[in-house]
């Protein structure tokens, strides 16, 4: 699938007909996409293939089939893969840490792995990224003594080492409190000014706030590609409220005011309301689930 409306001139990441299986599980199913500068968000339920795609983009995994081009290079070739990694920052979904290290030591260690061999320059860079994620006051604390939010920032800081052109962040805001998430958004927004950022999240409001483009994935496929506004617009006139739940509508939930918010299947005369990005996402996922259900039904004779 090719993203509609992709007019980005500088394509940092291009995947074509990408597939990946883990045993009998299809993680990616013929995914095709091109991603340019700015922040691209990946939305999707658990198991949708977001992390697998990001790990392939981060050169952690190799696809079973299909091609990947990152920063104009082919990661399947060892030499080009190293070149890509020199320009890549990656924050895994569940980053591990050497908990006995201090923040400074850990990031310094990663900086060495990123080929920063000049000690003074490396330490300057480590201090820079530590300041960038506002960890200066705890730079010499052991990681085991930090809160979960601080550790996420340590993970982000190590990804920022070397000022990478392509930043891959897998659920960077998971587990953060609202204030930490705001701070994170601010940091990533500033970072995205001059690089390509790919991030996955379950938080639709993060995507709405941060991303200039969004990809919605489900069951290993990209089911939507466009701007957050376009995702919201997919739910235009599809969101309505009623005092009782309509059993024919797949996605509906009770709001704090005691009404039922429905997405899709608008009955005649119903009161529609302004959709959010979450409505668009849920509408897509609901539709995808319905399609999936149909696929799983026996073929009509």
């Amino acid at each position: 699938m090719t993203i509609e409306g992709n007019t980005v001139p500088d394509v940092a990441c291009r995947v074509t007909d990408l597939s990946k299986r883990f045993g009998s599980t299809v993680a990616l199913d013929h995914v095709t996409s091109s991603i340019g500068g700015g922040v691209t968000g990946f939305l999707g339920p658990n198991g949708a293939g977001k992390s697998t795609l990001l790990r392939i983009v981060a050169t952690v995994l190799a696809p079973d089939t299909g091609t990947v081009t990152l920063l104009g290079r082919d990661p399947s070739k060892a030499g080009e893969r190293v070149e890509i990694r020199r320009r890549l920052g990656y924050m895994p979904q569940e980053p591990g840490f050497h908990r006995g290290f201090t923040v400074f030591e850990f990031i310094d260690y990663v900086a060495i792995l990123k080929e920063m061999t000049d000690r003074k320059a490396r330490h300057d860079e480590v201090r820079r990224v530590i300041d960038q994620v506002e960890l200066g006051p705890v730079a010499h604390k052991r990681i085991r003594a930090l809160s979960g939010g601080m550790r996420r920032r340590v993970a982000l800081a190590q990804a920022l080492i070397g000022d990478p052109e392509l930043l891959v962040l897998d659920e960077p805001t998971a587990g953060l409190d609202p204030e930490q998430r705001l701070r994170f958004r601010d940091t990533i927004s500033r970072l995205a000014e001059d690089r390509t950022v790919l991030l996955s999240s379950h938080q639709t409001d993060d995507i709405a706030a941060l991303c200039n483009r969004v990809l919605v994935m489900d069951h290993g496929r990209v089911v939507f590609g466009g701007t957050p506004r376009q995702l919201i617009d997919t739910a235009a006139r599809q969101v309505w409220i009623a005092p009782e739940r309509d059993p024919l509508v797949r996605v509906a939930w009770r709001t704090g005011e005691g009404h039922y918010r429905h997405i899709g299947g608008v009955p005649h005369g119903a009161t529609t309301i302004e959709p959010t990005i979450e409505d668009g996402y849920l509408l897509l996922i609901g539709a995808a689930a319905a399609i999936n259900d149909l696929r799983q039904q026996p073929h009509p004779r």
Partner: protein
Amino acid sequence: MTAGIAERPQRQAPPSTGSVWASLSRREARLVLRHPLTLVGVLASCYLLWSFNRDVLLPHLGAYSTYVGLGLAPLAGAGLLVGHLVASRAHRHDTLEIEETAPAVQRSRILGRLVGVLVTVPIAVVVVVAYVVYVYLQGAAGTPAVRELLVGPLVVGLATIAGVAMGTWLPNRFSGFLALGALAGIQIAFQDAEGTRHWLAWWHTVLWYGAPDLWVRPTGAHLAYLAGIALMVAGVAMLRHGVRPMPLMAVATGVALALAGGIVQARPPSDARTDELLARVTDPASHWVTIERPSVTYRVHPGYERWIDSWDAAVQRVLAPLPPSARPVLEVEQWHPPYLSQLEEELGYSTPEGQAVQERGGEVSAPRAIAAEGNLDGAWPIQVGTSAYIGQHARLAIAAATRAVGLPLLPVETQGRPYTEEEIASFNRTGEDLAEGGVEWWPGRELGEPAPVAGDRIPLSLACDAEGQAREVVAAWLAATASPDLAATYADIRAHGPGYGNAFGEDPIVMYSPDNDTTLQVVMWSSLGWRQGGGYGDVGESWSVLASPTATDLAAQLLELPQEDVATAVAVRWGEWTDPATRVQAIIRAFGLEAPPRPEQWLLRAGLDPGDFAASVAAYPHTPGEVETLDQRYPVCS
């Protein structure tokens, strides 16, 4: 959209791979340095090396170099575990994905870790240097055996590399202990292995009792063997992430080096070398260095000259109170272990060297071997060994003092008893093996048919009983003036009776004749070498003197008096005190001493029952297995 990628500032050229692993190795080295396990390993190694030297009076740097391998074993173990932790860290801490997406390739990372963790080797070198300095400051003679000293750091390096290899291939929490067990198993399997596999252990304490001039270990080949294995293991670690020429070459070179080193070091020694070893044991005179001091001539093996000052201080203190005309001319000779069984023990049982010595032992003459036992009569040179455990000064002092007063030393003993007059006479007459006693260890049995007695340095003399003679007291006092340990032993014996209390940290041994209580004797040599080393650790003078409880008690009383007054009184009446006809009562009267306890009182002080001696000895708690029965009487010393 934001600015295009093409507009970004040009990146600097990436550094070389070499720079990356070098930087990584420095970082890993710092982490290893501060790791608690490293500190524990260093402290344990320092303690172990210190403990080897704890009971040693005068070590030899060359011989003590062989302790380094064993001494550094804790550091090697710590290095292995730390190396394993370093190599498995990313796996254990789940940072693999972060590492994988960094441009540093796997081989750089493994190489950086391998080199970095080898900081344990310079740490080991520092420990070794500190150990050498410590041993030197203890008064060690000789020079360090540099190649033997290198065995320790090389073992540490090998173990550390093994830890990295294991952590690279099996990065789970417990595989480090598997590697540790495997290395320990190899050490255990080979250190007591028979035949040529003996030297294949990681380390070996070649000579417990010194004598580096009896060195047979082909240390250079062993170093090559260790280095080869280390290189091979390092290559195996590097092969973890792909078969490449350099790791393959490292493995191939390592295997070749290890094989070559292993084969060379396991070869039996040449006939020439075996001859040389035997010659040094049986005919040391051709090797000795002679050094003259007032009244004393010292003959020592090259490299041991530094011990002479320490020996001479004790001897001169003994001789100081003597009138100049009465000073004996003493000779002190240094001998290697006299018996071939001991040499074999020194070389390691079942080693090629030990076997070769045993096979060729028949060529050594029995009189030579007996001469090595020494201690024969008052004119016989004082013999010292090539090790110097605590008590050596006391032995020298006793030997000098007994010679000064004209007492013979104890005769050759076997199985805990002196030979009888008849036995010695028979041996002196025929040179044949003794009829009884010593069947297990008499040198003639190991030497084959003994040669006829040469006669020039034989015959043996027989022990005599000087109890009741004043000169025995004078000798005991003279010896104690030169040896605080001996003085403390006398005080213990006086306070608690023989067989009770400490003598050089251990119980004195009681020898007792059930037929005649007057022969109850305190044996001063209880801890002067026999029990320290589990056998003859030293040559000659092992059975330096028998002093009666009476003499010990009176000498202890003399030591409580102003020593200048005692020395003056002894010197003024020297001829009288050393006359065999002068009895202890004269000394008691002259110095106003208390009469010593009667024999049965000694027994009571020692906690023994004079009425049922055998039963009380059996139940005696202080010298289990050390109480012996003296069945024979000696002629009175004349």
